[in-house]
C-alpha cells in the first residue's frame, strides 16, 4: 500500500507540495497541541476552526465579487483566527462570561457567516467541501511559503513565552499572583492556536482539525513527562499520521483528510491501550506506574 504514491512522487510536483505541507503543519501542530492538551482546551480548537469558515467565505466573496485579489482564503482565515482569539479572550477574561457559551457562539457564527458569504458568491458553492474537509493535494507554493512563515512565528513565540504558557496551563491563578497579566498571555496563546488551526486547515479542513491538533499531542502526553517532550512527540506523531494518511490514501483515491484523521484516532487508541498495558506491567513489578 502506498507504492503508487512513491512512484508518482518524483513525477508530480503537487505530491511533493502536499508532503511538504504535511511536515510544515505537523511542526505547529505538535507545539501548539502540547499547550492545548495541557490546558484541556480542545473545545476552543473546535470553535476557532469553525470560525475560520467566516474568514474564508469573506475572502472568496471579496475575491470573486469585488476583485480584491490579495484577500486570499488563507488571509481571510488568519484574520478570522485572530478575531476569534480576541473575542474569546476578551469575553472570558476573569470569568466575565461563561466560556462554553462564548465558544458555542463563535463556533456557530463562523459557520453561519461562511455559509452566507459562499451563498452570495456566484459559482463557489462546491468549494465549501474542500474547506470543510481539506484538500492537501491543492496546496500551492505560495500557500507553502505562508505556512512556513506561520511555523516560524509560532515556534519563536512559543520559545519566548514558554515559561508563561506553562504556568498559565498549569494554574492560571498562580500566574496572576506572580504579577503577570494573565489576560494578554492567554490572548497570545489563543492567537497561536488560531494560527495553527489555519495551518492545519490546509491539510484536513475545518471539521477535522480538532482531531489533528489534539490527538498527536495527547498520544505524546501518555509517554512524556514534561511539556517539551509532549510537543516533540506530538510533532513526530502528527508527521506520522499526516504523511501516512497521504501515502495510504493516494493509491485507492480515498479522501486524504479523512484518512489522516482515521489514522490519528486509530493510532491514539492503539497507543493508549499499549500505554495501559505498559503501566500495568510496571505496577506489577512494584514501580510507580509512571513510564520513562
Amino acid at each position, binding site marked *: 500500500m502506498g507504492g503508487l504514491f512513491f512512484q508518482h512522487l518524483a513525477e508530480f510536483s503537487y505530491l511533493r507540495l502536499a508532503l511538504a505541507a504535511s511536515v510544515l503543519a505537523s511542526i505547529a501542530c505538535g507545539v501548539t497541541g502540547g499547550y492545548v492538551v*495541557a490546558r*484541556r482546551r480542545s473545545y476552543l480548537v473546535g470553535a476557532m476552526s469553525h470560525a475560520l469558515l467566516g474568514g474564508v467565505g469573506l475572502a472568496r466573496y471579496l475575491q470573486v465579487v469585488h476583485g480584491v485579489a490579495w484577500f486570499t482564503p488563507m488571509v481571510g482565515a488568519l484574520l478570522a483566527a485572530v478575531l476569534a482569539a480576541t473575542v474569546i479572550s476578551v469575553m472570558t477574561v476573569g470569568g466575565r462570561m461563561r466560556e462554553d457559551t462564548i465558544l458555542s457562539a463563535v463556533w456557530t457564527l463562523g459557520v453561519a457567516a461562511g455559509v452566507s458569504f459562499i451563498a452570495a458568491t456566484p459559482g463557489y458553492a462546491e468549494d465549501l467541501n474542500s474547506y470543510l474537509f481539506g484538500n492537501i493535494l491543492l496546496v500551492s507554493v505560495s500557500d507553502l511559503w505562508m505556512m512556513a512563515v506561520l511555523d516560524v512565528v509560532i515556534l519563536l513565540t512559543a*520559545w*519566548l*513565552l*514558554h*515559561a*508563561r504558557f*506553562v*504556568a498559565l*496551563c*498549569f*494554574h492560571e*491563578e*498562580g*500566574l*496572576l*499572583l*506572580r*504579577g*503577570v497579566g494573565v489576560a494578554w498571555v492567554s490572548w497570545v496563546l489563543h492567537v497561536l492556536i488560531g494560527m495553527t488551526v489555519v495551518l492545519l486547515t490546509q491539510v484536513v479542513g475545518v471539521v477535522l482539525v480538532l482531531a489533528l491538533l489534539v490527538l498527536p499531542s495527547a498520544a505524546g*502526553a501518555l509517554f*512524556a*513527562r*514534561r*511539556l517539551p*517532550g*509532549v510537543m516533540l512527540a506530538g510533532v513526530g506523531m502528527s508527521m506520522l499520521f499526516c504523511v501516512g494518511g497521504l501515502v495510504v490514501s493516494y493509491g485507492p483515491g480515498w479522501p486524504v483528510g479523512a484518512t489522516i484523521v482515521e489514522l490519528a484516532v486509530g493510532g491514539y487508541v492503539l497507543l493508549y491501550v499499549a500505554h495501559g498495558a505498559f503501566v500495568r506491567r510496571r505496577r506489577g513489578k512494584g514501580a*510507580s*506506574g*509512571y513510564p520513562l
Partner: protein
Amino acid sequence: MSSSRVIEIEDVCFGYEYQEVLHNISLTLEEGQFAVMVGPNGGGKTTLLRLMLGLLTPRYGRIRLFGQAPEMARHLAGYVPQSLHYDAQFPASVEDVVLMGRVERHWLGPYRRADRTAAASAMEQVGLGGYGRRPFRALSGGERQRVLMARALASEPRLLLLDEPGANLDPGSGRQVYELLRELNRRVTILLVSHNLKVVASYVSHVICVNRTADMHRIDDVGRTGLAGGEWVQLNHVSCPVAVHDEDCSSPHHGAAGSQPACGCGHSQPAGRA
C-alpha cells in the same frame, strides 16, 4: 505610611452574594512578624488570605500590601494554597513547577541559570533535594504541598502566606516545615492559617482569631488570658474568643470609632452567623 507595615487592613467587610463572611476587619502585620490565623471552618480565614492577595475585592474598607494595592504588590508575596485545582495529569517535572515561582522575572525567553539555582535551593530547603526531575503527577499529596512551598520560596518573597501548610503532612514532616518557617522568619514575614494552634504556638509571635471578625494578639498575651493548656482546643475548633457585632457593614455608622470591635479575649461566646 510606615514601610515596615507589610499588610494593612482597615475596616474591611466582605461577603459572597447574600452572606457576609468578614465583618469590619482591621489588622496590621508588621515586618518580621510570624502570625497564625485560627478559627472555625467557614470563619473566613482563607477568604481573608485571598483578600490580602487581591484575588477578592472587599465590599468596604481598604487593604494595603507593602503600602500598595494588593494587585500591584502581590508578586512580593509567596502564596502556598492548601490545594490546587490543577490537572492531575499535567506533564511537568517538580523543577518545572518550582520554577513557576520565578515566572515574572523575565519578559521573554527561558529560565536562566540563577532561576534554576534558586529553584534547587528552594527544593533543598523543603526536603525535596534531588526531586527536580521527577514528574509532579507522581508525587504524594504531602510531597506536592512541599513542592508548592518550594515554588513560593523560589520567588524569594518578602511575605509568605500559607494556607494550612501542615494539613497533608505527617507530624514529623509538619515539624520540619515549621522549623523551616522559623528559620525563614529571620528575613521573611509569615502569615499562616492553621487548624491546630497547639502545634504552631511555640513558633509564632502573634495569633489572629478569625470568625467573621478578627482580632490579633501577641502569643504571650493569649497565654496570660487563661487560654493555655486544655483550652487551646476550644480556641481552635469551637469558639475563637472574639466579640460578636450585630451591625451590618451597610449601616451608616460603620467605620466610626464606636463600632471598633472590643477585644473579647477570655469570653467563650461563640460568634454567631448572620
